[in-house]
């Protein structure tokens, strides 16, 4: 589904990604963990084509995308939920939800989405700028589930949210898994990540420095805590 090899990324002159290698197989949920500033967000932005100054190889469903603009990457069936959530303030909830065009058949219907996110239905006519952080996150996830994207990039979906909302997002991720979608998840909340992920990559200073399979997590908990500095 995704193969990244030797990925370098830059913001202007500053070199942020230093040869990232990672892969995600179809149907997997894979997490990137790492401290603030490690380059996790930048990696997702490079995959989407939002970070334009990049080199190396990124293959999405077999297509080399290192030179493609974001709209072409998205059209391959990739859904992006950015760290800042990116809810459009001048659009209401329904408009935000309906904004991303359908990329492939098999996306969730509006009814399914409202069943999964009941509070969005109540707020359908609210302006995007009026939503709480939790509602914004729900909406940001909901709108890519509608498009039929088969591969989702989620950047810290639990960041700054109350525990009850984190639990709700956990259930959403389980639903995503049941629907056999593939997910690359960036997450600092390791408990949350451990519950839903098949594998973990540890990122530091723009490189992947460790990879941990599901079965190894228990044994490597201490090492992970050290990586994350918690």
């Amino acid at each position: 589904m995704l193969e990244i090899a030797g990925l370098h990324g830059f913001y202007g002159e500053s070199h942020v990604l230093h040869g990232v290698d990672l892969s995600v197989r179809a149907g997997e949920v894979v997490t990137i963990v790492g401290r603030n500033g490690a380059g996790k967000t930048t990696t997702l932005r490079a995959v989407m084509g939002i970070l334009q100054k990049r080199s190396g190889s990124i293959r999405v469903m077999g297509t080399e995308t290192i030179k493609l603009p974001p709209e072409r990457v998205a059209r391959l069936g990739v859904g992006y939920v950015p760290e800042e959530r990116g809810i459009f303030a001048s659009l209401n909830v329904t408009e935000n939800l309906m904004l991303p065009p359908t990329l492939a058949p098999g996306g969730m219907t509006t009814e399914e989405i409202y069943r999964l996110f009941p509070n969005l239905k109540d707020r359908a006519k609210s302006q995007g700028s009026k939503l709480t952080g939790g509602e914004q996150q729900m909406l940001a996830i909901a709108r890519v589930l509608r498009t039929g994207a088969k591969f989702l990039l989620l950047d810290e979906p639990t960041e700054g949210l109350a525990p009850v909302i984190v639990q709700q997002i956990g259930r959403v991720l389980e639903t995503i898994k049941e629907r056999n979608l593939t997910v690359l998840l960036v997450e600092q909340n390791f408990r949350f990540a451990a519950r839903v992920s098949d594998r973990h990559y540890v990122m530091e200073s723009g490189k992947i420095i460790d990879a941990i399979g599901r079965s190894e997590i228990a044994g490597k908990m201490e090492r992970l805590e050290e990586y994350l500095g918690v």
Partner: protein
Amino acid sequence: MSATALFGQLLLGLINGSFYAMLSLGLAIIFGLLAIVNAAQGAFYMLGAFIAWMLFQYLGIGYWASFVLAPLAVAIIGMILERTLIRRVYNLDHLYGLLLTLGLFQIIQGMFVHWYGTSGQPYDYPDILTGGHNLGFMFLPTYRAWVVVASLIFCFGTWYAIEKTRLGAYLRAATENPTLVRAFGINVPMLVTLAFGGGVALAGLAGVLAAPIYQVNPLMGGNILTTVFAVVVVGGFGSILGAIVTGLALGVLEGFSKVFYPEASNMVIFAVMIVVLMIKPAGLFGRER
């Protein structure tokens, strides 16, 4: 003061207001999406009128066909300029966009002055819109009524398209966060080109509507541009509804002042602009940034 003169000036004010509204609406769309203050808007207005005149002069094509063809031609010229020139300054300060489009304005106007002089060419009313009706309190020329109605339809149609349709939602979203809209699979660079084409086509359409009322003159764009900039400042840069309402209102105000105090009519809009700038710098409909 006769009522006939009052209503006559009011109608003329409403007509000028319609032109202000269409030009500043186009400016608002362009500014929202491209962050470019399109100083060439006046040239596209003049081009609309001139293309209509040339279509008739050289090809015998009449008003109604020109009503479609001239704005379309203006849109195409605009899109070519956007693709080849204007696109290059998006990442620079606003000032560069203003200077570039101001340069384009001068070049386009200069070419037409060179070819056609500054005396103005007459352009005829379409047959079915000649004549008028006596309403009792005033005489209403049919063509002038048509101009007001057509402008209102196009202004509010554009507003509706932006606020209520899917393409409009793309436009509004891309105004806020173009990168994310691209990441959803929408070709925003194409959308930007189309928006520029649509924004200048509104000016071109206003030019066609104006052609039979005023003469077709290469300098007509410069005359209206200064006023339209004042309208945009009063309404608030980038505000769609603000552009329409302010354009119409200031046109009418200008018409009124022609009746009551003609000496002030050339500056009343600018006086309003100064007051608004002092009280609400973002404009009446603008959001503070």
